[in-house]
Every structure is written in C-alpha cells, then in structure tokens.
C-alpha cells in the first residue's frame, strides 16, 4: 500500500511555526523521517492558506523535494496555492497528488489542475450538504465525482476516492461505513477505482495511548478491504508488521497465543466494527 506521510500539517504546532518562519530544518527532518519509514509521497498540508498560500506551497514543495526524492501531495483548499505548488513540483520523482476535489461545485476546478499538470487527484466523497450517512451515500457521491472527472478529462486511474474518515469517539458507526465504502468503491469501475483515507482522523479526540492502537487496527481492516493508499504516519504504519497477522487471525475467528494481545485486538475490532460502544477506557473493561 502507498503511504502518504502525513506529518507535515499546519495543525501541528512545530510544523506551523516552521512554516511561518520559513525554517526548513523541521520540515526537512520530518520529510526525511517519513521517507525513511516507507512513505511514497509526502503530504504538505498548509490549511486554507488564504494569505500567501501560493508562496507557502511553493516553499513547502521545494523544501521537501530538496531532501527527499519523492512526489508531494498538495493539501489545501486554496486553488491558486495548489497551482503554484504544481508549477514547481519536480515530476521526475513521481507525479504530484492533489488533496482534494469533492462533490462541492467550488471544488470542481481542482480537476482542471489535475489534467493540466498531469497530477493525481483525491476525490473526497462529500457534497455541499451534510456528511454522507453510510457507505451507499458515499458511493452515490463517488459516482458523481467520477462522472465529473471524465467530463473534465481526468482519467479514472488518476482519481483516488476518499470515503472521509470521521472520529470514532463521536461518530463510531462511520468507521465501519468507511471500510465498507472502500470495498464498494473498487467495484465501481474496471480496473477497480483507487481508494485513499486520511487514516489517523479515526482516533482524533481519543486518549494518546489509544491512538496508535486504533490507527493500526483500522489500517489493517482497510488494507484487508483493498485500500490503495493511506495518508498516515509512515513510522506508525511501519510498526504494524507483526500485528497484521494477529489482527487478521482474530478477525477470522482464530485463537492466538498471546492472550493479552488477543483481548486487545478483539476489543478494538468490536469498537471499530460497531459491535460495542466506544468509550475512552474500552480496553480497561
């Protein structure tokens, strides 16, 4: 699976300060660490970036690509900032990605940028209205986005469908809807549609010690459902290794040797699959 290293986000204080001060050190350090941990793309999330977004995105792209030979995922709602970033992106190290278009008319022009700059585009399955209620609604929106991509001339192979991961602490049912949507998206085209998630949002708002546990389990379930790509912490995902088989075994109803681990996996799968209510202390019960 392709990992887009997610750590360069304006939401993180250290990254935000580095962006504001144009301090390359922390940005490059994180980009290198993500690349070394196995990221195939580096996410550059500069937020809405209403002022100076173009310059900031160009600085991010060049700062990252100065030290890692990888493409960048341009993550902002600012159209001009994305275009500016694409203009300086070094495509020799892979095609850039754009995060994101959606079913909101304001986000349609993003598709033009994908075509013009030979970039891959993430299609977030939300519209102008509320959030999708379940996997079926996500598919209905995905179909709209696919139709529009073809209209704009973006090949469907260059479109990644994103079912929108929500917080398990407040929107528990969506965790399994997202897994189901990832399966269903693939059957919407031949060859199968590519899929992507912003993984760690699932554990946003959960106690710190729970976050890697929830992220890793959710990752394995999504991988099992055929996910193509995850925006995630590459270091955390690299640690999934040995756990993957244990999680899959428990999922298949098998016993595993490590009983404590088995309990942790069972409880976490129950929470993600909506078989028991989430609570911050669900592992302690």
């Amino acid at each position, binding site marked *: 699976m392709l990992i887009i290293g997610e750590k360069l986000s304006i939401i993180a204080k250290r990254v935000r300060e580095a962006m504001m001060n144009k301090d390359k050190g922390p940005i490059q350090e994180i980009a290198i660490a993500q690349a070394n941990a196995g990221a195939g793309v580096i996410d550059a999330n500069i937020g809405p970036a209403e002022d100076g977004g173009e310059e900031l995105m160009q600085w991010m792209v060049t700062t990252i690509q100065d030290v890692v030979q990888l493409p960048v995922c341009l993550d902002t709602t600012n159209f001009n900032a994305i275009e500016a970033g694409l203009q300086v992106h070094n495509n020799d190290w892979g095609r850039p990605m754009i995060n994101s278009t959606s079913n909101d008319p304001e986000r349609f022009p993003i598709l033009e940028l994908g075509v013009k700059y030979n970039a891959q585009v993430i299609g977030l399955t939300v519209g102008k209205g509320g959030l999708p209620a379940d996997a079926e609604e996500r598919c209905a929106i995905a179909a709209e986005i696919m139709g529009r991509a073809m209209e704009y001339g973006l090949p469907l192979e260059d479109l990644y469908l994103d079912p929108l991961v929500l917080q398990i*602490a*407040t929107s*528990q049912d969506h965790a399994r809807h997202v897994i189901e949507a990832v399966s269903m998206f693939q059957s919407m085209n031949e060859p199968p549609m590519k899929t992507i998630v912003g993984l760690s949002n699932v554990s946003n708002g959960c106690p710190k010690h729970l976050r890697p546990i929830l992220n890793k389990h959710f990752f394995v379930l999504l991988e099992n459902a055929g996910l193509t790509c995850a925006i995630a912490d590459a270091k955390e995902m690299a640690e999934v290794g040995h756990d993957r088989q244990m999680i899959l075994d428990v999922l298949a109803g098998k016993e595993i040797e490590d009983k404590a681990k088995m309990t942790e996996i069972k409880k976490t799968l129950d929470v993600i699959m909506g*078989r*028991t*209510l*989430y*609570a*911050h*202390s*669900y592992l*302690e*019960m």
Partner: protein
Amino acid sequence: MSYVAPKETYSGTVYPVTIGTGGKSVTIGGENALQFHSFEGTMPNRPLVAYEIQDVPPEDWPENVKKVFDGVSDCPVKWAKYCQDELKARAIALRLIGTHPDREDRSAEDAAKTVRDVLAAIDVPLIIMGSNHAEKDASVLVAAAEAAKDRNCLIGKAQEANYKTIVAAAMANDHKLIALSELDINLSKQLNILITQMGFDKERIITDPMSSALGYGLEYSYSVTERIRLAALTQNDQIMQQPILCDIGMYVWKVKETHAAESDQPQWGPAEERGILWEAESATAMLMAGAEMLIMRHPKAVAAVEALIDELV
C-alpha cells in the same frame, strides 16, 4: 398464509435496582425487552414517577405549578409529606437547589439537616440531588449521603468533574448513584467505567443521559436514551445496562411554552393546561425512549403519565 407479528430477540437485560427500605421500597428496571414491549419479553417492574421537591421555596417555578404546592412548599418536610400522603407519591426527589452558590448558598450541614428531617417524615424512597454545581455538589452530597445512611437512597448527580467524592460517599453509606453525562453516549459509558473502576457496583448505578423539554432538544435526549437501551439489550453491553432516569420537570417548567400567559399568546391556549400537557408529553416521549424513572412536578401531568403507564403495562 396467516400473519405472524415480527418479534425482536434481545441478548441483554436491564439491571433491577431497588431504592428505599421496608414496605415502600421500589424496584425499577429488570426488563429484557424495550420498554412496554411485553410481547417480546418480560417487564417485571413499572416505571417510577417521583415528585420533585426542593430545600428552598420554589420561587423560580412558574405560577401554574408553584401554586399547586402553596402552603406546603415553604418547608421541605411539609412538601414531602404532602406529596406522599395527599398525592400518593411512590418516591420523592429532593433537589438541594438552595445550596447553589448563586442561590441561597446553603451549607452542606444545612443540606444534611434537610435530608434528615425529610427522611424522618416519609417512608417512600428518597432521591437526593445537589444543585448541579459540580464543585459544591461534591461537599453537599457527601454530607447528605451520611445523613441518609441506611435508607438506601438514590443520590447524585455524579459527573465526570466530581464523581470521585460522590461515588465514595454513596459507597460508604450504601446508596444508589445517579451518573450524569451530557447527551453523549460514549461519555456515558466512560463515566460508568470510571465509577466501577472505583469499586462501585455497576448494578447500583442509575444513568441520567440528560433530559430536555419538548421543543428544546428532546429528540437528542430521546436518541441517546434509546441508543443506551439498545446497547444494553441488543449488544448485551454489561456496563450500559442500568435503568435510566429522566429528570424532566426542571427542563419543562423553564421553557416559555409553560410560562407564557394566555393574554400574551392567545393562540397557544390556556396556560395551565398547556404547561401540564408540555410536561406530560415530554415525559411520555422519554418513557417510550426507555426511561424507567421520571422526576416530575405537576400532579396532573403525573396523573396523565401514570394513566398511560396503566394502559401500557
């Protein structure tokens, strides 16, 4: 082909919880199906309606409900006895609202005396509630719990911010406990886990998911209550199988529909009847959602709800 009514099967049961002592003690909960679904399971105990009284005169209650208690509401003991003897209350809910720092700021000792005096005058179960000021409640409810020792009362409300002292007081004095969370099913579960981690039995908790009046977010309370009950019955979630309390009167008699005079809102009809209906309707909705215990104010609204329960059980 003959029609066969579809039936749900449930894997869980609501804990039966008893409050009070002696012949007048009351048990709620114990059902293994949704409320009133006696065609799908058993519902051994009738939902309980408790009359709300206060430690201080109800100056903030609207006239149409305040006047019902004229002559008794100046003294919590008289008020409690009136509810028990005249209104045939099956339980009394004493709200120590006068302890709130923004109200009379009564001391924990004063509150404890009120509790002792009321308990000496009644033999139906007593529910003891603080003023919902997390910090003050911690001290008030500790004193109240001691004053009520051996009477198997229901005390609360324990919230995330103050549960430790209140749980300890309930445990030391053998009371049942109200656990309040604010319209959040996941935090409701979390609070139950935290309380039981202190060694308090989960079978001694009553859950208050927070109520709201009709027109003011009742649907949120309804939905959270229903989902808690479904977790108990369909997921057999052992930490979510407590009976549910709906403290509805205090919310209903705050909204303008129960206050506005007919002269100001002629299209709304007679004010007194309107207020009674508002309370009865809100309470009924919460019964349908799954509440086993209601705290109410107006005797006519209580009578309407009791009549409905008569028909449904």
